[in-house]
């Protein structure tokens, strides 16, 4: 029983991170139909840059986090305005290739300029572990889950309460209609890239104390986050969040009871099963297009 509860705690912790990746994916995909392959790179940049600012340049934690967020958001905006916007005549498949290229570029620059070693960060709260009836809980796990909840709530308030947020929802539900209403689609999609990068950077900073981050951490995160988004379904706002949490739980149980070396394989199995059995995701508003 203790082992079971322990797996739930660790599953929810990684699941919260996957939920943030899934949310970032969905934000860009819904607003622009662009499949942003470099979503995991936002997390990697957030974690790596914050860690290196602190360890190498001796910046205090909040400043390091701010620097990491600013640079990552800068990358997100540059990807949209200098990459995707420039390739105007490109088809969706070409834009996908472009984001794969951006992901490789950032990964390559990170390995060459920031080094190939794992980077760590101190926790958000003083490092401590609690024992609750035999279950070990780290303060940082609490910080990750609380941080993820805060980010999701902030995004929800932004989307439903502000005019800018409603413009994003408008573009997501009907791009042409929104444009006819006077919404500048370029600005909205650019904003989504910036927001998505910010969510990624914050997620990376939260996750790094527990998971550590290296230049190649982004790929696996992108796969898991995408699996979460597909599992939950992109049709409903809570779909990717629940999907990400479920992927984290499945992975924790898979690692705990089946094989810890191949824990990353469970996401692939989930992904293939979602495609085969329920491609619209668990919480779908409408069915996906089939060919």
């Amino acid at each position: 029983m203790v082992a079971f509860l322990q797996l739930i705690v660790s599953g929810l912790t990684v699941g919260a991170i996957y939920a943030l990746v899934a949310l970032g994916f969905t934000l860009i995909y819904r607003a622009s139909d662009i499949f942003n392959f470099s979503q995991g790179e936002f997390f990697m940049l957030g974690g790596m840059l914050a860690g290196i600012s602190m360890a190498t340049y001796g910046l205090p934690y909040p400043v390091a986090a701010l620097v990491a967020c600013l640079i990552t958001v800068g990358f997100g905006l540059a990807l949209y305005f200098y990459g995707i916007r420039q390739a105007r005549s490109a088809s969706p498949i070409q834009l996908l290739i472009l984001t794969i290229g951006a992901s490789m570029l950032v990964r390559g620059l990170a390995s060459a300029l920031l080094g190939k070693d794992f980077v760590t960060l101190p926790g958000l709260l003083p490092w401590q572990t609690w024992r609750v009836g035999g279950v070990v809980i780290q303060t940082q796990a609490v910080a990750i889950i609380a941080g993820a909840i805060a980010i999701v709530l902030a995004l929800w308030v932004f989307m439903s309460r502000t005019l800018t947020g409603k413009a994003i929802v408008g573009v997501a539900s009907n791009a042409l209609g929104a444009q006819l209403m006077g919404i500048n689609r370029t600005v909205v999609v650019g904003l989504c890239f910036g927001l998505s990068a910010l969510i990624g950077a914050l997620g990376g900073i939260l996750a790094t104390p527990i998971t550590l981050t290296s230049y190649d951490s982004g790929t696996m995160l992108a796969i898991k986050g995408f699996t979460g988004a597909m599992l939950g379904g992109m049709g409903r706002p809570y779909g990717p969040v629940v999907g990400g949490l479920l992927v984290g739980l499945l992975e924790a149980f898979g690692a705990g009871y089946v094989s810890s070396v191949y824990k990353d394989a469970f996401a692939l199995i989930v992904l293939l099963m979602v495609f085969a059995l329920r491609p619209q995701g668990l919480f779908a508003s409408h069915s996906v297009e089939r060919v």
Partner: protein
Amino acid sequence: MRRFFSSVYAPVAIVALAVLLVSLLPLSNFHIRIATLLFIFSIVILGMNLLMGFAGQISLGHGAFFGLGAYMIAIGVKQYGVSPWLLAALSLPVAGVIAWVIGRPILKLRGYHLAMATLAFGSIFAMFLNNALSITGGPDGMALDMASVRLFGMPPRWSWYWICGGLLVVVMYLLASLLDSPTGREMRAIHDSETAADVLGIDVARVKLNAFVISAVFATLAGCCFVMFDRYITPQSAGILRSIEFMTMTVVGGLGSAIGSILGAAILIVLPQLLTVFHEYEHAILGLILILIMVFLPRGIVPTLRARFGPRER
């Protein structure tokens, strides 16, 4: 003459002639090696081009299929002492089945989910290669213990030049006759407009799945050639970076162009030899090439040149 050049079989004849003519040049051992690698990679890229250029899908798992062929041979010879030629023949249907299982549910859906699923497959395959030390030799890779191949008494280098060059021509011929067949016409219809093809009663999902399976089998075939030629295989040769390299070769040369596939492979094989100082930036340069091609030459080199200088298309 003009009719010959517009036929789908023209590139096959041109490449066959090129393989013959290049062999007459005074080649150093290094040159023969580069030419053989070019033949091997071209086989992969021709398959990728079928998938990307005609089915309009991206795979990031072709490095894994390449590695599947290579490792099946290396492991089978080492552990069970089976003939490498038999293992090569066995690996092709195995790759086909894996591609079918991955592709079948995904290719029924609209969108580009295949990219993510193949990336996941490729990552797990790479993880297996790196972790299963007793089977795969881990990150150090494994050597293939195999008698030297002497085709008609030629030295091994030249034997592999002719075997791989010959296979490349055969693969090109198979693809050309595929594109000339009803299935090929269905693929070209999908390439022009998926909706129109669907309306005409073409089973779009099945045709895309065929393209994916064929391209995976070609990548595996190339992997078999690679390990027998090089006698060594490492996880790096089968990783995600390899898959992205394959994709870059395909888009640089040009989607839907057979000659473009070979040109793209050639550029990305020769470029690293010239830019060894930038080895540290290998990932970054690949990424930059992808971005620049998509922004400035989204159709790739050969189709862009053809549109500018070639005869007007029908």
